C-alpha cells in the first residue's frame, strides 16, 4: 500500500498576560476554584468585555516570529455554543479576520529542515473547567478561574507528513513561545494544547484517494501525540483496506485519544458538527493595527531558534546535534554563550559541559536552568573549565567541584581554596608520593618490569588515592614511568 500521511495541527497556547483577556482578573494557573472571578469572566448579566492590549501585542509578536502577515484591521467574533464551563454561552474568538495570516515555520527533522505553512493565528478566550465528582452524588462543579484566559490558536496547513514531524512542529511552536516569553507552554497544565487533523492519501496506480479526515483531541503530552497519530495511521490503513471510505463521502469526524489503551475512539460524526453561528462581537470595536507599530514590534523580537541555530553553527562552530540540544531552551543557549565568554578554550567543551553535566543536574534536581544559574552563574562554569586547561585541577576534580558549586553556591576558586583541592603540580613533592607508592607495591613494579605495562593504570590509581585525586595526572604518569625505568 503506497500512501502519504497528511497532518495539520491546531495548537492553542495560553498567554502569560498579567490579566485575563477581557477583564482585570489576574491570569495565573490553578488556585482555589472560583477565586479569580469578576462580573465579566463569570458572564453576569450586563457585564461587558474590554480587550487586553497585551493580548494584541503578544499575538503580533507570535505572528512576526512565525513569519506571518499582520493584518491592518482585525476584529473579535462570537463563537456561540453552550457548555457549563462557558459562562456567556459564547466564546469571544476571531472568525474571518484573524490578526495573523499566512506564515510558516521551519522544523528540524531527521530529513533536514522542513517548512510548515501556517494558515492563521487568532486570539480568543479560554473556557473554565468542569469538575465531575466520582462519588455517588454524581455532582459536577464548574471552576471559572481559567475562564477568560487569553489564548492564541495557531492553525497549520496540512503540510506535516509524519507523527515525528507533528511533534517537532508543536515543539518548535513551544520553543518560539518560550523564546518570546509569552507562554510557558506546559502541556500537562494545559497551557499548550494540540488537536491534529490526519488522513491518508492512498496511491493506487495513477489514482490518489483521500481517506476521511479525523480530528484527534485529548493529546496531553508529546508522547501521547506521537502515539495517537501512529495509532491513527494504522487504524486508517486498516479502515481503507476493509471499507475503502473516502473523505468526500464521510467528511470529517472527531476522535479522542485514550491514554490507557493508546488508541482513539469516535467522539463525533460530521452530521453532529457544531453550528457556531459566528458574528462580529458587538461589545468590542474592530482593532486597527498601525503598520509602524508592527515595525517597532519587530525590534522587540528576541533572536529566535532558527536564527540562533544558524549563528551557533557559524559563530561557535558547534555540530548540529549539540546546537539542537542547546536550543531546546533559550535560557540554556544563553547560559552556554555567557559561559563561552568567560572560557578561553574551545566552545565545544562548554557545550559538552552544558549539555551533559548541567543537563544531568537539571534532571536530577528537577530544576530549571534559571534556578540553576542563580547558584552557578555561567561565568563560574567558564572559570572552572579555565582551571582545567591551566592544569590547576583535573577534569575529574572539576566534576566534584561542579557538584559543590551547585550544592554550596560558591565559585570554583572558593571551593578549590577551601578544600585544598589544588592539583599537586610540584614535581618534587609528587615524586615523593610516587616513590612511596612504588615502594608499597613491589610486586606490581616487578610485573611492570616484566613487560606488563597495563599495571601502570593501577599505579596511577594508587597515586590518585594517595593524593585524594589532587595529583596532576600527566605529571604523575610521567613520574611513574621515569621512576619505573630506574
Amino acid at each position, binding site marked *: 500500500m503506497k500512501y502519504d500521511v497528511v497532518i495539520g495541527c491546531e495548537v492553542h497556547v495560553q498567554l502569560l498576560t498579567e490579566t485575563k483577556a477581557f477583564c482585570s482578573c489576574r491570569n495565573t494557573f490553578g488556585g482555589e476554584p472560583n477565586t479569580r472571578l469578576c462580573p465579566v469572566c463569570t458572564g453576569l448579566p*450586563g457585564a461587558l468585555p474590554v480587550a487586553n492590549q497585551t493580548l494584541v501585542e503578544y499575538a503580533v509578536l507570535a505572528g512576526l516570529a512565525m513569519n506571518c502577515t499582520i493584518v491592518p484591521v482585525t476584529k473579535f467574533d462570537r463563537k456561540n455554543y453552550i457548555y457549563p464551563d462557558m459562562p456567556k454561552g459564547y466564546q469571544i474568538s476571531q472568525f474571518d479576520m484573524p490578526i495573523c495570516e499566512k506564515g510558516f515555520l521551519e522544523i528540524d527533522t531527521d530529513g533536514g529542515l522542513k517548512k510548515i505553512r501556517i494558515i492563521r493565528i487568532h486570539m480568543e478566550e479560554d473556557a473554565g473547567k468542569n469538575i465531575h465528582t466520582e462519588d455517588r452524588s454524581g455532582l459536577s462543579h464548574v471552576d471559572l478561574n481559567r475562564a477568560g484566559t487569553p489564548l492564541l490558536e495557531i492553525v497549520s496547513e496540512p503540510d506535516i507528513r509524519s507523527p515525528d514531524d507533528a511533534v517537532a512542529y508543536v515543539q518548535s511552536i513551544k520553543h518560539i513561545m518560550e523564546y518570546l516569553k509569552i507562554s510557558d507552554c506546559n502541556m500537562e497544565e494545559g497551557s499548550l494544547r494540540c488537536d491534529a487533523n490526519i488522513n491518508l492519501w492512498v496511491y493506487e496506480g495513477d489514482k490518489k484517494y483521500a481517506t476521511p479526515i479525523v480530528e484527534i483531541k485529548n493529546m496531553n503530552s508529546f508522547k501521547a501525540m506521537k502515539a495517537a497519530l501512529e495509532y491513527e495511521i494504522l487504524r486508517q490503513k486498516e479502515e481503507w483496506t476493509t471499507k475503502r471510505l473516502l473523505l468526500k463521502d464521510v467528511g470529517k469526524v472527531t476522535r479522542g485519544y485514550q491514554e490507557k489503551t493508546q488508541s482513539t475512539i469516535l467522539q463525533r460524526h460530521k452530521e453532529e458538527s457544531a453550528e457556531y*453561528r459566528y458574528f462580529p462581537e458587538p461589545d468590542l470595536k474592530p482593532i486597527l493595527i498601525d503598520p509602524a507599530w508592527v515595525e517597532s514590534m519587530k525590534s522587540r523580537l528576541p533572536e529566535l531558534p532558527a536564527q540562533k541555530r544558524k549563528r551557533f553553527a557559524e559563530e561557535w562552530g558547534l555540530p548540529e546535534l549539540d546546537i539542537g540540544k542547546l536550543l531546546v531552551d533559550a535560557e540554556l543557549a544563553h547560559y552556554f554563550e555567557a559561559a563561552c565568554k568567560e572560557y578561553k578554550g574551545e566552545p565545544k567543551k562548554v557545550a559538552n559541559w552544558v549539555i551533559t553535566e548541567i543537563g544531568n543536574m537539571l534532571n536530577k534536581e528537577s530544576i530549571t536552568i534559571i534556578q540553576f544559574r542563580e547558584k552557578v552563574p555561567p561565568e563560574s562554569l567558564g572559570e572552572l573549565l579555565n582551571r582545567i586547561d591551566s592544569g590547576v585541577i583535573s577534569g575529574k576534580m572539576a566534576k566534584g567541584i561542579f557538584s559543590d558549586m551547585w550544592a554550596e553556591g560558591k565559585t570554583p576558586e572558593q571551593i578549590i581554596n577551601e578544600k585544598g583541592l589544588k592539583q599537586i603540580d610540584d614535581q618534587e613533592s609528587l615524586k615523593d608520593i610516587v616513590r612511596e607508592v612504588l615502594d608499597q607495591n613491589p610486586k606490581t613494579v616487578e610485573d611492570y618490569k616484566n613487560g606488563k605495562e597495563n599495571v601502570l593504570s593501577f599505579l596511577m590509581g594508587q597515586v590518585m588515592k594517595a593524593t585524594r585525586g589532587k595529583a596532576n595526572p600527566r605529571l604523575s604518569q610521567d613520574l611513574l614511568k621515569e621512576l619505573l625505568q630506574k
Partner: protein
Amino acid sequence: MKELIGMSLSELKEKLDKKEMSTVELVRAYLDAFEADRKHEKPLNGYIEVFRDSIEKAEKADEARVRGSARPLEGLPFAVKDNIVIKGKHATCASGVLKGFCSPYSATVVKRLVDAGMIPLGRTNMDEFGMGSSCEYSIYGATRNPVDRDLTPGGSSGGSAAVVASGQAPVALGTETGGSVRTPASYCGVYGLKPSYGTLSRYGVVAYGSSLDQIGILAKTPQDIALMLSFAAGADPHDMTSAPTNFTNCSPLKERDIKGLKVLLPTEFLGEGIDPGIKQKVESFAQWFKKNGAQVDTDSVPILQAAVAIYYIIAPAEASSNLARYDGVRYGNRVRQTANLEEMYVKTRSEGFGKEVKRRIFIGNYVLSSGYYDAYYKKAMQVRTLLRREIEKVFSKYDLILSPTSPCPPFKLGEKVDDPLAMYLTDICTTFSNLALIPSLSVPVGTTGAGLPVGVQLAGNRFREDLLLEVAAMYHKEGSR
C-alpha cells in the same frame, strides 16, 4: 404631598436646596403614592419592587445636607428599569429565567447617579428582556397606562414611563433597543430621550441587542433629562463602545434660537399606517418650527422603510447570543431534578423564557446559522451601513428630523399581544435612530381628539442630545405659557 410628587426633578432639587422639605418627606411621598396606587382596583404595576432602604438613604441625605456635605444631586430619587443592575438588588428583566438573581455590582450609569447623591426608589416593570412594545410580556403582569388604565403604557420601558407619569418617581431610567423609551414616553405623556449610542455606558445594562442598546431617560421636562445626562454621560473604561462625550455643560439648558434651524419631515413617517390625529400633531409641531423661523422641508428618505425589517433581524441575532448565558448553571432560576445536563438546559430555558423572547431567540439563531447568514444577518448589516450613510447625508443638510414617535396612540391591553407583526410595526418610526446610533427625543405634545397622549419625535445628529433638549425646552416653555 400630591403637590410634591407632581414636581419636576429640577423643582425638587430647588426645594431640597432651599431646605423647604426633607429628603425623607420626598421619598416617603413617592412610596406613599406607590402604596396608595396598589389599592386601586386596577393598580398601575409600574414597580416590580420599591426599595425600603430608600428611606434610610434619604435620612443620610438629610444628614449630609445638615453637615453641608450634600452632593450635587443629593437625595433626588429615581426609578430604575429592571434590566439595569444595582449592587445588592435583584434584577430579573421581568423574566422567569433570572428569578432570584441579585447583582453584586452596579451599572456605571446607576453608580454615577448614586455617587452624585441620587437614591434608587425601585425597579420598574418591563417587557421581558426589553422585547416588546406594550409592557405586557412580563412575569409580573402588564403595567397599566396612568392616563387610561385599560391601555398599554407602551414598552418595553412601560414601568418607567408609568411611574414618572403617575408621580411615583420624578425621573426614571429606561433602556432602548428600538424605541423602548420613546414609545412609552409618548403613550404616557412624558419626555423620553434615547441618547446616541455611546453617550451612556452600557456596563450593567442586561444586553438585548448590544449594537443597539442604550440607556434612556424618562422625565417630566427636557431640563430634568439634561441634569441627569450631565452626571451620567461620558466614557466608561468598562464599556469599549462608550464615547468620550462631555455633557457636563448641557445643564442648565441654554436658550436656543429656533430661527434658522433646518428640519426634515420624512414622508415615510407620514403616510399609510400613521394615525391621522398623530399626523396632525406632527404637522402642528412643524408649524411651530416655521412660526419661529425654522425651515421645514418634507422629503422622502426611502431607506427609512427598511429600518424595522433590518431591526428585527439584527436585534434578535444579537439577542440569541446575549441570552445564551441564561442556562441555570451560575445564577438565576434552574429547573432541578433533571436527568442530565441537556434536560436541565432545555427545561430551564423553556420554563424561564416567555414566548416573545423565545420567538426572537429562534429568529436570531435562524438568521445567524450557516446557509442563512448571508441572506439575512449579513444583508441586514449591509443595509444598516447604507442607512447610516443616508442619515449622515440628511444631517449634512438638516439639523433635525421630525416625525411621530409612534404611528398609533396607546392601544388596549391585550390588543396586540398575539399579533407580533402588529406589535413590531409600532416601532416603525423609532428603530432607525438605534440603527444609525443617533439621539432621539419623544416630546409630549398633548392628546388626540380622543384624549390619548401623543409624542412627537425629534432626531438629531450623533451626540447632539443638547440640541434636541434645547429645542424641546423652548417648545415646552411655550406650551406652558
